[in-house]
């Protein structure tokens, strides 16, 4: 049997919807918690010392920062060694480029993808001279491919 009363229960609707909105707002607020407001740990800027210690034509692997430092006649550039597929660390083969041991991605010497599942090129990293004259690479700051840093 149905209830004869057909009047809308405004109070009930208000109560219900205000509860839903309150709980929804709380949920939304609470969902913000897991995303860190600030990255823990020190900034990933690496000081490499006197630029003069790197010979022209040299390739230096900087393990701590996961990048390779190249010095050529045009200047310095740093290429990230973190594979853009799923994050393994690539190896550098002299003259051939980079190769990732995990799924076989291959990159040319300037970081472009030449084979394997990697979706994007290896990023080039920003190089600057620190106030105390050291070569400084910012592993969190990518620059366009081809950017050289002249000392």
């Amino acid at each position, binding site marked *: 049997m149905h209830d004869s009363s057909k009047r809308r*229960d405004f*109070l*009930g609707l*208000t*109560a*219900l919807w*205000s*509860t839903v*909105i*309150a709980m929804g*707002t*709380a949920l939304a*607020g609470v969902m913000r918690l897991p995303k860190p*407001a*600030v990255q*823990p*740990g*020190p*900034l990933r*800027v690496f000081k490499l010392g006197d630029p003069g210690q790197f010979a022209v034509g040299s390739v230096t692997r900087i393990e701590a920062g996961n990048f390779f430092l190249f010095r050529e006649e045009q200047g310095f550039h740093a290429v990230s060694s973190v594979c853009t597929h799923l994050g393994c660390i690539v190896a550098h083969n002299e003259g051939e480029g980079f190769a990732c041991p995990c799924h076989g991605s291959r990159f040319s010497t300037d970081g472009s993808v030449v084979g394997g599942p990697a979706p994007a090129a290896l990023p080039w990293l920003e190089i600057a001279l620190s*106030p*105390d004259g050291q070569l400084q690479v910012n592993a969190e700051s990518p620059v366009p491919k081809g950017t050289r840093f002249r000392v």
Partner: protein
Amino acid sequence: MSGDPSRPFKWITAVCSVVTIGFLAAAAVRENISADWRGYQVGFRGILEAKAKGDAARATARNLPIEIRQIVVPALHTVDRCVSCHLGIDDPRMTDQPNPHRTHPRKLLAIHRVEKFGCTVCHQGQGAALNFQEAKAEEYFWDYPLLPAKYTEATCGSCHDPRALPAGSADKLVLGMKLFEQKGCNGCHKLNGKGGPLGPALDNEGLKTKHELVRASLKGSQTNWNWFAEHFLDPSGIVAGSLMPMPALSQPQVETLTVFMLSLRQRDLPAEYLAPDKIDEQYARLHPPAPDGATLYHRYCAACHDTGLHTRWDKKFARFVPGIRNAAFVRTEDDECLAENIREGRPGTRMPGWGSKAGGLSGAEVAALVAYLRTSAPAMALPAAPPRGDAARGAALFAQECAGCHGMDGKGLIAPALANPVFQQAATDAFLAQTIRAGRENTPMPAFGRAGFSESQIGDLLAYIRKWQPPVRNAALPGRHAIQEGRVTP
């Protein structure tokens, strides 16, 4: 009975839900909109835009992200979020801006890069905080509140030898160090193992928290620098029963001494943070240069003995303090005796031992002090003492002439305690006889020889005085012929 049975519940639900939404919104606003640091970053962004030269720079300035910024220094175990408000701290263009945007003064960040040092290693405070009140952390549950600007030099000493710094770097600290030596604070306070035992050792004074200080009579803020400042102005007012005399200090002197106190820290900083001059300082402490007797005297002796040329009455000790640089005294003691007195002190009196096991002075330093005392007068060859006479006659003489100053039982009043066991062992008959005979100039001790005492009378007095000699020679107490520093003398 009519009505919907859940009606009251619906009302409660509606009202409480609205209240809930209100507080959720208020909390969200408080965190995401009206937080102090956001306002400051927006202001800074405006300044950057105004100062930008060229469209590209202006565009970059406009895109400055408003986010929490922090400096993490794992080597120092610090996370400093000061830069969330002080964004311009290492930007040289911001010298004309008001705080918190202003550049760090004195170009200090050029040599103390922010990424390597953070902020709290020098400034203290609660680096993790995101608002000024909690960063300052005064009257807060935090052990090390932000150091006021005038005391910031205190932390320079953690990595530097302040005396090796260029002039204008840590002048207050250097002045404080000098004042500490001049005022002879080491006479009662040990520092680096050297000093007197009457007051507490000061080695980690700068890292004391407010819980470790007596604050019952503290008037100002509950901070340790305020405690130092008030303590210097009125020591026994702050620490009840303190024997510390009120040092005569001007307000700027109080400040420099407070800076020095705050700088006394035993910190465990990684080696790469210590400046070379600090390491030199630590080396020098282990291999000290040749000591200067006059400096040593000021540092360790002057607080009680003053110039040492006269006897003085000390109000706090309610005892007289001998004039150890008195020529008449120094003349009658040889170097070995002086050195022993310094090394072993006078147990039973306020004079502490200063040897390496007690006050921490090395053999070379004791020798330097003796040399300094010796400048008052060369040692004289003492004439032989008369043979000991009749003690009963000596007693009568003593009661008549000596007891007034030396006390009836030889316990000392305004003159040394002749019954002191150390005195009895250190002093020879010749020394006693000469003192009685010739007196001590510049002290109340008259020259009884000149006043008419015969040698036999002196002998009687000697017999009486020696009655106070301890019956068994206490091996622990020094004697003139005791084993000294590894040498055995007959």
